[in-house]
């Protein structure tokens, strides 16, 4: 071999080793707990970072010799899920504790990414303080619990008192059925020109907001009992095809847009509609009724860019009624995030100790208030300091008693898209209610591998 060949060969070998070294062993130190969470893409928002730094300090003081390593993932929601799923795939990269959205937790459970927490929860006294519905949010089809919820959200009707006054509607408005809502919107349309009578999120551009804040708030109000789930049948473990309730909900959406009680269709189907509602329509008094989530005031707090401290005088709150006012008369949907331990975590025991530190009553309360979150613990919900922390917090916390969690099983994201497509069809007028419901049935079969049932 000529002398020049040697360095070349070396270069080749070096390249190859450098490439294979990309996934070098990180190993897991038995005294360090690694925590991954979603960091806001907005650099000025440090709510989570501040809170976790505080807990880290408490934890390290209480457990001498143990260290906490925070591993933020800076990304918008949808990308955070993807990145998280990638680090969970290998023991080399899996953290000890992750922040999981209830929207996708079941998909990740099915993928085998997460560890059941039942043995830990059985020995943890505070678990009894958590309300049952919240416990179910992180429960899989196998009946085991995979996450500890750190708060939740609820949904209801926000309305503009000034517009209501002009329309001759009461300042303490509370509809008792769907017809009341439509009548109020019609009154606004007739008497207050130049404003949008009501907003309900619809169609694919709005994404999960359309499904959850829009459609499910209607659909779950068509059920005849508090425990009935109109979307998924837990007994047979099957998804329910377009029921009468489903069609009625579509009809409500159709009515809103057909009678021009909602935003202009092209605005309603603009991907930025949610941002416009919060930042423009409501603060500028351009929207009468808005079916939306408990987190709206987050955007109006000081230092948020859309400061609007007087919102609590300008806006009223009403719960979403059931279709005809039948029991339980109120309806709300809830989502939220949970703390979960990856199945490939190196230090699961230490990770659960950290959850316990986060979920002492005082720390949980601190977090709910910092985050405009809704308490899932009975002891915090009853605490006057929590109730007084923000206007509206009591109203939305009381809704937890009558809330529903999404059947967020692995097929749910696809089912959600199918719902958005059906909504969009009746919003644009491209399809009738019957056609849209039929299209949903077909999509549902594909999305769930034919796990459907007629009701």
């Amino acid at each position: 071999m000529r002398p020049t060949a040697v360095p070349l060969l070396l270069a080749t070998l070096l390249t190859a080793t450098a490439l294979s070294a990309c996934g070098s062993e990180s190993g897991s130190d038995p005294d360090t707990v690694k925590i991954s969470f979603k960091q806001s893409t907005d650099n000025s928002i440090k709510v989570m970072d501040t809170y976790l730094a505080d807990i880290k300090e408490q934890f390290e003081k209480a457990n001498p010799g143990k260290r906490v390593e925070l591993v933020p993932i800076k990304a918008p929601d949808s990308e955070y899920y993807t990145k998280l799923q990638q680090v969970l795939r290998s023991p080399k990269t899996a953290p000890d504790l992750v922040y999981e959205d209830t929207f996708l937790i079941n998909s990740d459970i099915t993928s085998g990414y997460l560890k059941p927490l039942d043995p830990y929860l059985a020995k943890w006294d505070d678990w009894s303080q958590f309300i049952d519905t919240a416990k179910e949010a992180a429960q899989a089809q196998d009946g085991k619990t995979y996450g500890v919820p750190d708060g939740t959200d609820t949904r209801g009707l926000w309305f503009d008192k000034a517009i209501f006054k002009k329309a001759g509607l009461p300042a303490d408005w509370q509809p008792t059925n769907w017809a009341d809502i439509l009548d109020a919107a019609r009154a606004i349309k007739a008497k207050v020109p130049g404003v949008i009578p009501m907003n309900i999120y619809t169609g694919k551009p709005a994404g999960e907001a359309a499904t959850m804040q829009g459609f499910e708030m209607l659909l779950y109000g068509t059920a005849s009992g508090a425990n009935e789930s109109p979307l998924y049948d837990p007994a047979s473990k099957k998804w329910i095809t377009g029921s009468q309730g489903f069609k009625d909900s579509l009809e409500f959406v159709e009515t809103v847009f057909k009678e021009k009680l909602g935003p202009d269709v092209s605005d309603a189907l603009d991907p930025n509609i949610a941002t416009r509602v919060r930042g423009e329509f409501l603060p500028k008094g351009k929207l009468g009724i808005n079916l939306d989530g408990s987190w709206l005031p987050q955007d109006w707090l000081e230092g948020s860019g859309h400061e609007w401290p007087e919102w609590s005088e300008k806006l009223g709150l009403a719960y979403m009624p059931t279709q005809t006012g039948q029991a339980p008369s109120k309806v709300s949907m809830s989502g939220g995030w949970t703390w979960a331990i990856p199945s490939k975590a190196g230090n699961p025991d230490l990770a659960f100790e950290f959850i316990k530190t986060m979920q002492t009553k005082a720390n949980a309360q601190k977090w709910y208030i910092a985050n405009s979150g809704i308490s899932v613990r009975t002891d915090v919900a009853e605490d006057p300091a929590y109730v007084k922390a923000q206007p509206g917090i009591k109203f939305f916390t009381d809704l937890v008693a009558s809330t529903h969690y999404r059947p967020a099983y692995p097929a749910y994201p696809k089912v959600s898209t199918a719902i958005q497509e059906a909504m969009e069809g009746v919003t644009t007028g491209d399809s009738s209610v019957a056609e849209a419901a039929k299209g949903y049935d077909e999509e549902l079969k594909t999305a769930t591998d034919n796990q459907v049932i007629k009701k």
Partner: protein
Amino acid sequence: MTSAPPAGPGVVKTAPGPTAPPSTPGGRRDVRRVLTRALPLSPAVVLLLLFLAGPIAYCVYIAFTDLQLTGQAESSFIGFDNFRAAFKDDAFLNAVWLTLVFTVLSSLIGQNTLGLSLAVLMQRASKPVRTVTGGIVIAAWVLPEVVAGFLLYAFFRREGTLNAVLDWLHLPSQNWLFTLPILAVSFANVWRGTAFSMLVYSAALNEIPKEITEAAEVDGAGGWRRMWHITLPMIRRSIGTNLMLNTLQTLSVFGLIWVMTRGGPGNRSQTLPLFMYEQAFQKSMIGYGTAVALLLLVVGSLFSLVYMRLLRTEV
């Protein structure tokens, strides 16, 4: 008694025939030489295999599995199921149709014809006009795709520039992105991509010898006839190349449409790349999305084949 003179040396050497094995020392040197010469290439080959061929092969494999990003315990090989599902999927067929519309309108008709007309006009224009026109057209092409997308979104939206102009002319205005989304994004693609065709055709037109066009002119051929009988046949190869490159570029446009309409409203501007993204990353069905990507490749090669056929030079 004379004996025949000996016929040369008694040992008869067999000349090495063509099938004789090469003498070992020289052969070994040959192999070694080939290896030594290949050595400088090896880092590049390793890198290409690792980062290009590997992923491509993996993609082809994934297209035949039901791999998901999340929501399943393990993926399995399912043969042609993804492809069968695609052809039964109305949304996929809709995406194929829209992709064809988008490609024919914006690449074949729009960019190509407009590019050629601009090139022909600029041949006759004075230098300052040529510089200014060329500058403007190329500027649209140089802009990053996302920026171009936002500009055209601002142009077409309900409170946008186009409607302002129409109002001023007292013509009826509408929300173009909502009523005619596929036309709006096609127009956007023409606006953005014409420069490329213009440059190709300008170069091609400059290659045509002046004598020929002058001779035709002397023989009394008018502008259109000269175009049809002389210019077009002479730049035929450039037309083929340009159509091919244009089409392949247009087939894979994603950012422009994503920014303007996100494939909406409904699925009315959801071309194949957007459909692919929705399936793979929004619905987590990586296997199905990859299968659709392979089908997009097929669409691209079909176009290429047609062009090659149509524009074969009969020399």
